[in-house]
């Protein structure tokens, strides 16, 4: 969660309405200098090397992987798709197929539920005046401090007592619980930035809260919702701890991360399959990220002035 904490906060909490041109112009000037570009390229290359090595490893034959590092691929190139075949086949060592489906079943409600709830809650905190609003908001914000590890056993006990232990519900609800404090906080900050005049104008036209929320807020919020959606998606997709604890590891509901953890075998003898498994697992987040990344840019530049 740490990356998710830091990254979106910056674009979302800046004030894009006052002097947006000046600020972005200055930023543009600084960021497009030749040296900055060079540093950016170097960082990008350095950070991509491990992933690149993983990609190379995944297409090398078992013997090569176990004997030598991925860089020796260039002097001794052997390409095979056996690793991918072994990982995907249900009869072979792993069989990631059904776990892949489980991951989707887990991730979609685990993104939609917290974002829907957080948007409503954030609206209430930002634009509805009620007693104890600030105190309640601080309490929710403070919930982020609770480490999820300490909640695992008590939560599982609650699920078991209420009869939903070991079902998808347990995982969906847990991910929603863990996502809500940050999502409410971020969306609240974003909604607060929307000019009061816009809301007042809508009220003058006779709009109630429900209409303001759906007709005025939602279109403006799209970039923020997309940003939070991406982070929640990545977090849930890559999560092992929550899924493992609440699914109990059964193949009916366990996600792909659980299968990946078991892929190398009891004695770890099949570790050559890990790189292929990892690549299959990250394919989906990459697609989601690339298809939604324009919202980041929109969130950064357009802000609340759109529409």
């Amino acid at each position, binding site marked *: 969660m740490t990356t998710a904490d830091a990254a979106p906060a910056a674009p979302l909490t800046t004030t894009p309405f006052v002097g947006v041109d000046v600020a972005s112009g200055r930023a543009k000037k600084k960021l497009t200098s030749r040296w900055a570009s060079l540093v950016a390229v170097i960082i990008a290359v350095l950070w991509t090397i491990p992933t690149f090595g993983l990609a190379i490893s995944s297409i090398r034959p078992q013997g090569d992987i176990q004997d030598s590092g991925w860089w020796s691929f260039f002097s001794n190139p052997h390409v095979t798709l056996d690793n991918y075949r072994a990982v995907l086949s249900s009869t072979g*060592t792993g069989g990631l197929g059904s776990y892949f489906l489980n991951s989707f079943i887990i991730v*979609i409600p685990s993104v939609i539920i917290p974002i829907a709830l957080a948007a409503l809650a954030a609206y209430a905190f930002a634009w509805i005046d009620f007693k104890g609003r600030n105190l309640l908001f601080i309490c929710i914000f403070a919930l982020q401090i609770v480490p999820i590890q300490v909640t695992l056993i008590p939560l599982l*006990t609650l699920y078991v007592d209420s009869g939903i232990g070991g079902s998808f519900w347990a995982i969906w609800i847990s991910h929603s619980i863990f996502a809500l404090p940050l999502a409410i906080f971020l969306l609240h900050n974003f909604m607060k930035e929307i000019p009061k005049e816009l809301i007042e104008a809508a009220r003058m036209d006779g709009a109630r809260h429900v209409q303001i929320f759906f007709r005025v807020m939602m279109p403006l919020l799209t970039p923020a919702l997309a940003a939070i959606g991406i982070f929640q998606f990545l977090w849930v997709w890559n999560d092992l701890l929550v899924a*493992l604890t609440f699914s109990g*590891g059964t193949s009916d509901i366990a996600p792909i991360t659980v299968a990946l953890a078991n892929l190398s075998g009891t004695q770890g003898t099949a570790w050559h399959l890990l790189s292929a498994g990892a690549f299959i697992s990250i394919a989906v987040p990459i697609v989601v990220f690339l298809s939604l990344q324009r919202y980041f840019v929109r969130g950064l530049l357009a802000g609340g002035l759109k529409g």
Partner: protein
Amino acid sequence: MTALASRHRAFALTASLLTLTLAVTACGSSSKKTRSTGPECAAYTQYGDLSGKTVKVFTGIVTPEDALLKKTWVPFEHCTGATIKGTFDKSFETQVLVQAKAGNPPDIAIVPQPGLLQQLVATGKAVPASAETTAMVDKNFSTDWKAYGSVNGTFYAPPQNASMKSLVWYSPKEFKDKGYTVPTTLDELITLSDKIAATGKKPWCAGIGSGEATGWPITDWMEDMMLRLWGPDEYDKWVQHKIAFNSPEPTAALDEVGKFLKNSKYVNGGLGNVKSIATTAFQDGGLPILKGNCSFHRQASFYAANWPAGTTVSPDGDVFAFYLPGKTAADKPVLGGGEFMLGFRDAPEVHAFQTFVASGEWATLAAQGGGGRAVSANKAADVSKCTCSEIDKLAFQVLQDPKAIFRFDGSDAMPAAVGSNSFWKQTTSWITGQSTKTTVDKIEASWPKG
């Protein structure tokens, strides 16, 4: 307007995904099995009709052994109508504790350590074994094994598979060429080592490197020597810390290990001097035997998988192992590991399945399956039907021996601060020069108080 349309699309998408989710969840429940009563099921009538019943088994055994394990369950399912639903997950050891504490443990957990078994029983959720299971275990297993499946005198968990650590790898070809015979006592082993050392060859080779677990092969050595010098009762006292780690018995046991591993005439064949033991990976420790640079390597039966492809592991092949002999030929202490089937639900099908796994039928099925799941300490197992390797046959033979006294790997049963920390680290320092006295003193000092 476009916003409205896209919102409708989003709702439709959400709705369809939720429907899909529900459909998939519904498909999860499998169809009911019925019991078969053919002649092949004669041995299974004692378990009765369990049609429609399900037993959930949780284990840390994953690929490729999980398939072998599942295969041994098929006749039981076929003949009783029960469904055995396995969950195979490497994080078993932490997850099973979480589940037991939260109140949704599996029906049966396959527990590989006596320490974990005790922790699980302490949660209060475990169910003692039924009278039938206990009778089956009394019939097929030695009292040592039954004791490891018991907590505070109550018998809970029948044993499943077993592994054996008290083995010395050697080259049968070298023995044949030089006219050596397999030693049957510890003294004979030392005499033979001296004889080989006199020819200018270093007889022993070893490696203890294993990442952060570096040192563990020495703990096995010391456990083996503790058993051989002082017998199982002193061994138990040592593991349970009823005698201090630096008392005379363990000190003598470590000195006995030193007679082999810190003896510059004995080690490190084909690898270097004594200190090279610490820097050699345990996987590579025995490989010099193949090149003829070393004669003996003490390591568990799983080492069979470490020989390069094309090596024949058999009594007349390139390499094989003999039982690390006891003080006398009649003493047969065996150091090893095993798994226990701990039940958490008091139901006929759960007890029936536990009884089945303790039966000779199951042990024979496992032996037929071969691979890493073949060996058990079950005296009723039909070893002649075993498709297992020669080394598995040897392990079977030693474990089934009525004279064999089985003891669990002691470092697994010690507190983690010792068993998986100071014991490894201090013995590693010991091999690189630290004195025996300092070593046992330091390990004793690290034992958790209270």
